[in-house]
């Protein structure tokens, strides 16, 4: 029973993080900030949801599979964000006007 409640909790929090990520995606002013919101909140949300499911499933192979999904996502998600951010910058999309500092600009 406690596992169930925990699972529901995990799922709900995960969904909540998804929602936050989405809001971030919609609200934030430029690509870089949106990347923050979208990729990482979502990654966490996914992690939480999958963790909840793992809890529910218990120690079976499916759990391990889900663990692998999480690992993959945690490997690829940030990398994708990183690649995208870099490419966007190199592509010439400027930072948001109200950005405070840009040390990357100095790089030849």
């Amino acid at each position, binding site marked *: 029973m406690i596992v169930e409640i925990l*699972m*529901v909790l995990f*799922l*709900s929090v*995960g*969904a909540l993080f*998804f*929602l936050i*990520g*989405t*809001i971030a*995606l*919609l609200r934030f002013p430029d*690509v870089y900030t*949106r*990347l923050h919101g*979208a*990729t990482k909140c*979502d*990654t966490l*949300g*996914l992690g939480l*949801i*999958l963790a909840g*499911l793992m809890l*529910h*499933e218990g120690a079976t192979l*499916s759990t391990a*599979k*889900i663990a*692998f*999904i999480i690992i*993959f*996502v945690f490997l*690829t*998600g940030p*990398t*994708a*964000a990183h*690649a*995208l951010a*870099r*490419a*966007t910058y*190199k*592509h010439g*999309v400027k930072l948001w006007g109200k950005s405070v500092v840009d040390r990357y600009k100095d790089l030849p």
Partner: protein
Amino acid sequence: MSVYLVIVLALCFTALLCTYRLISGPTLPDRIVAAQAITTKTLAILTLLAFMYEQMIFLDISLTYAVLAFLSVLAVARYLERGKVG
């Protein structure tokens, strides 16, 4: 109505919200970010579906997603950076 369904619906809703960003842009990276976000949500939905339908085999699909969605982001990034993929 199971918990899964509620969560899935919530995720659907968020995915729909993401679609706005996907379609309206404004820049290409924005869209890709949105796509990335939708992919993640899709992944969650798929995994939830696997539990909802009690078909653990669906997890394979999620796994495929988890790996393959990465590719196109890389490709687009490469294109944005270098003007070509190869």
